[in-house]
């Protein structure tokens, strides 16, 4: 077994690990807002480790570029979908998503920005 194969298999193991950690972490969280955070594990580390494993297995061919595109799509869309989901959870719970007086965090009002 060459160093190349060991590195490729190590990257595959890393992808499997991130997928399992993400899935189990998401499943174990009580609040949906907490569970949302675990989406980022396979979307970032997992997808890019898989792209590197593909280039090690087959070289920089069409499959690698497609996998790299998938990794960038997952990276970009995961943040948007996570934000949209969190916003909808808040809107569903409170009837609005905008920050209001009494919320347990600081925010800048539109009038203060001007």
């Amino acid at each position, binding site marked *: 077994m060459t160093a190349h194969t060991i590195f*490729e*298999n190590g990257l*595959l*193991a890393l*992808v*499997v690990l991130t*997928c*399992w950690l*993400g*899935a*189990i972490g*998401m*499943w174990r969280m009580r609040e*949906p807002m907490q*569970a*949302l955070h*675990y*989406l980022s594990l*396979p*979307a970032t580390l*997992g*997808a890019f480790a*898989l792209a590197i494993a*593909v280039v090690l*297995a*087959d070289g920089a*061919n*069409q*499959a690698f570029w*497609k*996998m790299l*595109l*998938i990794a960038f*799509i*997952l990276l970009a*869309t*995961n943040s*948007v*979908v*996570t934000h*949209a*989901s969190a*916003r*909808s*959870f808040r*809107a*569903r719970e409170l009837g609005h*998503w905008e920050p209001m007086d009494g919320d347990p965090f600081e925010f800048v009002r539109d009038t203060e920005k001007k």
Partner: protein
Amino acid sequence: MNPWLIAGMSVSATLVPCAAMCLRGSPERRLVGLEMTSMLVTIAMVMFAVGYGRTPFVDIPLALAILSFGGGLVYARFLGKHL
């Protein structure tokens, strides 16, 4: 059986906790389970395509990654406004 197919099967096994999320609990939890499922299926499909030596089939997870983005947004919007 090669390491890619073993990894693909291992990632496919993560669909069990995802199914548990999608089939039980509040709609919010189900939506998170759906989003995770689409991501994990994308990764597993790439592994199977490489493992079986059918790399042109990587187009399918590419299409899934793009379409699941729209699907996730639609469900999130629907959940916030109507459900």
